[in-house]
């Protein structure tokens, strides 16, 4: 499925804003992303599997509170960097 990558993480994807990844859940999708782009997962998910404070992940435009969301092959996943201030 399509995964939209925010600018903050594109060093890991070779500059690509949109990549392909697979997984039946958000957790599995992120594991696949890590296999394809080593290091990317820990920058957005902490060691307790929590989504970091200034990262948001949307599945079909609905914000995912954690990594348990089930995914289908044609779902769209959007990762967003969410931070304000200087």
């Amino acid at each position, binding site marked *: 499925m399509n995964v939209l990558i*925010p600018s*903050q*993480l594109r060093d890991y994807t070779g500059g690509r804003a949109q990549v392909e990844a697979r997984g039946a859940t958000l957790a599995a999708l992120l594991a696949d992303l890590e296999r394809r782009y*080593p*290091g990317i997962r*820990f*920058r*957005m*998910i*902490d*060691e*307790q*599997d*929590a989504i*970091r404070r*200034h*990262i948001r992940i949307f599945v079909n435009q609905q914000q995912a509170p954690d990594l348990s969301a089930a995914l289908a092959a044609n779902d769209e996943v959007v990762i967003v*960097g*969410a*931070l304000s*201030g200087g």
Partner: protein
Amino acid sequence: MPKAKAAKAAPRPASGPVTLLVGTRKGVFLMKSDRARKSWTLAGPHFLGNIVNHLVLDPRDGRTLLCAVRAGHLGPTVFRSTDLGRRWKEAERPPAFPKAALGEKGLAVDHVFWLTPGHSSEPGAWYAGVSPPGLFRSDDGGVTWEGVAGFNANPMRIVWIGGEQEQGPPGGATLHSINVDPRDPRHLYIGISAGGAFESSDRGETWRPLNQGVAADFLPVKDPEYGHDVHCMRLHPLAPDRLYQQNHCGIYRLERPAERWDRIGNAMPKAIGDIGFPLVLHPRDPDALWVFPMDGGTVWPRVSPGGKPAAYVSRDGGRTWRRQDKGLPAKQGWFTVKRQAMCADAHDPVGVYFGTTSGEVWMSASEGGRWTSIARHLPEIYSVEAAGG
């Protein structure tokens, strides 16, 4: 006070160009001098937009740099360069606490705060201090990191640090001031803000508090065993039985194997006090050290007292202090110098450097006798380390 016993002869002074490794809230800058340290060129930024708490050169090979990086949006990591910063590669396994068992709350590294190269007999060994307070070790030059379970999983850890606190000091409670005894790689000291100073004699498997004589005015308990707020603690490599500490509550010296710290900050001028963040040692004289006082009154402004910044130097192990402010703003200078943001090079006379929260780098080629601004308009500076020479 007896002169410190030197474990080995002082190294010959350096004479080549100096490189300053400057970590800032918005990335890394490298400043290179000529041999006379009179002209400086500024290169960078590297990691633009990233928060860099510490950038350290490995003295064992003179070319490996480790850099503690996080971004506003992104989690913490460590980058490494084996060619003095030309190319960078991220750690394959950055410092991270173990995953907690189901139903239990685990720790998550917020940022890597401090980096210390390991013992000279252990090439590739590094230590990292993180926030919330945790200690990590790498044995492969920073590629992979493992928690030091003797501290991180110690049942007393949560007691020593006063509970897990979301906020703590500005930037969060943190582990720092990792000192490795040059005579024994198993012998370690660490500082925790807040938590205190701790010692291990078995490479981190067990720890014990080392805070006797240190004030903790913010605690209700008189003479507590732990809970103190170490700002910066340094062991002198030529006299490893001597430790100096800039604490939230004063400046101290400890002569091992004694256990009781002596408040050498009592000899500072009363109008200035002995509160500050950094503490810098002379590379060849264990009796010489510099501090940069800050205002610790009322709401703790943490700026130069009275808006008149100055370093203070002692040449006798803290028995007496001398103000060093020539060249610095005589008034309306309200910056702060953070605990990793002051350092010395190995020249003779020693060059002393500091970076400010207002993005300036100052240097003195005369051991603090006169200060010169060598960079302005940088982001808030978190760390300055001198390399080369």
